C-alpha cells in the first residue's frame, strides 16, 4: 500500500482555490484598506474594515479545514491502515509511547482551528499535512521556508547530533538530514499519528531520522546529548511556564558550545502590523501567541542560562535570515517570522 497524501482535485481544488483567494484578499487588499483607515483614525477596533478582516482570518481557516476533512473522510480507513505499515529495512526508527499523557494545553486547544487537533484521530495527520501545504497562501511549495531556515539560519558546522522539538510529520526535520548528512537527526512530537507519518515519509525519502513520542519539555535524552536543538513553529503554541521548561530542557540536552535555533514569530516594531498580529492568536486558536509577543526572549534565554541570545527577522519569501536585523519591506499581511538563537556556554 502506498502512502499518498491526497492532493485536492476537481471540486475540492476549486473550493480550496476560492478559499485561498479569500485569504489573498485578506492579506493584500483588505490589509491595505485597514492600514489606510488606521492611518487616518484611531483604534483598530473602530475601523469599518476590521470586522470583515477578523471574520476572514478566522473563517477562511474554518472553511479550509472543513473542506479538507470532507475530502479525506471517505479515505480515512485506508489512510489509517497505510499509517500502520512497517517499512522494510528502515534506516531510521519510530518509538511510540502509548502511556504518554498528553498535556492539557495541547489537548484542550484545537490549534489553527483544525478540529480534533493533529492527535485525536489517525487520519487527522493527513488533513494537517495537506492543510500545511496549502495554508501559507498557497506559497508553501515543498515547504521552502523550512529549507530556507536550515540553509540561512543554521551555521555550517560538523554537528554530531541534532534534535528537532515538536517535529510534527517531519517536514521541519528532513532538511537537517539534507544539510548535515553526517549528523544523527532526532525528532520528538506528542502526536502518534504525526510521528507515524513522519517515519514513513522519512523512510520513503530515504532520510535517516529517529522519531520519539515525547514532550519537548521532557525529552528523556541524557545531559549533553546534542550539538544542535531546533524547533519550528512550536514555542508560540505553549503556555509561558512550559516554554521556560522547554528552553531549560534544550539547555540540558545540549553539549557545551551547542546551538539552540528556533523559527517562530515575534513583534516587528511596526505598530500597526503588531497590533493586528496581537489578535491573530485569538482568531486562529493559538491562545499563547500574544504572551510570546510580550516575552523578552533574550532575557528569558539568559535567565535560563543560555549565552549570546539573539532574535533576528526572517524573510520566508526572500533570503531567509536577516543578519542586519531589519524587516523586509512588505505591504501585505504576513507572518512575522523570526529566528531565535542562543548558545550553551
Amino acid at each position: 500500500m502506498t502512502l499518498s497524501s491526497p492532493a485536492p482535485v476537481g471540486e475540492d481544488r476549486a473550493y480550496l482555490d476560492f478559499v485561498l483567494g479569500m485569504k489573498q484578499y485578506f492579506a493584500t487588499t483588505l490589509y491595505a484598506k485597514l492600514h489606510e483607515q488606521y492611518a487616518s483614525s484611531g483604534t483598530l477596533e473602530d475601523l469599518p474594515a476590521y470586522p470583515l478582516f477578523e471574520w476572514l482570518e478566522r473563517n477562511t481557516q474554518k472553511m479550509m479545514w472543513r473542506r479538507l476533512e470532507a475530502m479525506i473522510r471517505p479515505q480515512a480507513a485506508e489512510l489509517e491502515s497505510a499509517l500502520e505499515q512497517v517499512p522494510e529495512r528502515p534506516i531510521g526508527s519510530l518509538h511510540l509511547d502509548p502511556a504518554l499523557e498528553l498535556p492539557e494545553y495541547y489537548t484542550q486547544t484545537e490549534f489553527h482551528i483544525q478540529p480534533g487537533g493533529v492527535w485525536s484521530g489517525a487520519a487527522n495527520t493527513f488533513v494537517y499535512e495537506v492543510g500545511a501545504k496549502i495554508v501559507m497562501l498557497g506559497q508553501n511549495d515543498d515547504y521552502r521556508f523550512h529549507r530556507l531556515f536550515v540553509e540561512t539560519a543554521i551555521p555550517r558546522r560538523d554537528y554530531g547530533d541534532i534534535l528537532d522539538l515538536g517535529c510534527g510529520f517531519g517536514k521541519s526535520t528532513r532538511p537537517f538530514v539534507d544539510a548535515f548528512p553526517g549528523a544523527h537527526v532526532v525528532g520528538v512530537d506528542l502526536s502518534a499519528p504525526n510521528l507515524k507519518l513522519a517515519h514513513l515519509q522519512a523512510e520513503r525519502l530515504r532520510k535517516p531520522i529517529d522519531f520519539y513520542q515525547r514532550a519537548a519539555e521532557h525529552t528523556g535524552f541524557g545531559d549533553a546529548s546534542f550539538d544542535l536543538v531546533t524547533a519550528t513553529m512550536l514555542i508560540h503554541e505553549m503556555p509561558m511556564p512550559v516554554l521556560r521548561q522547554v528552553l531549560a530542557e534544550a539547555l540540558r540536552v545540549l553539549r557545551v558550545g551547542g546551538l539552540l535555533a528556533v523559527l517562530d514569530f515575534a513583534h516587528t516594531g511596526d505598530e500597526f502590523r503588531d497590533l493586528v498580529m496581537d489578535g491573530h492568536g485569538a482568531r486562529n486558536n493559538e491562545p499563547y501567541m500574544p504572551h510570546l509577543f510580550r516575552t523578552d526572549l533574550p532575557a528569558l534565554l539568559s535567565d535560563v542560562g543560555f549565552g549570546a541570545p539573539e532574535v533576528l527577522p526572517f524573510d520566508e519569501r526572500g533570503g531567509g535570515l536577516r543578519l542586519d536585523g531589519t524587516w523586509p519591506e512588505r505591504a501585505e499581511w504576513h507572518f512575522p517570522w523570526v529566528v531565535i538563537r542562543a548558545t550553551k556556554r
Partner: protein
Amino acid sequence: MAFSVGGDSGNQTLVPDLTFFPDPNVDRVLGVVMELAAEVYVLRDRLHMLEALLARSGVLTPADLDSYEPSEPEREQRLAERDALIARILAPMTAEADSPAPPFEPA
C-alpha cells in the same frame, strides 16, 4: 462540535463561536454568503472544464456557446427563472412576510 477524521478530541462542548461584527447575525449571514460564493466558483470552474473538454473533443467550440441563439420561448423561460431568483434572494430583505404569522394570543 469538534469533528475529527476518525478521532475524537473530547472537545464536544457546543459553544458559540467568535463573532466580529457589531451584530453577530452579520457574522452568520456572511458565512452563508461566502459558502454560496465558494459554491458559485466551484460551479463556474466545473462549467469551464466541461466547455474545455467538449471543445477538445470537438463536440462544440466556445464560440458555439457564445453565439448560441435561444428560441423565444427558451429565452422567456430563462428570464422568468432569473426574475424568480432575484425575488427569492431579496425577499428576506423586504421584511414582508409572504405567509403572515397568525395573531397570537397567550394562553
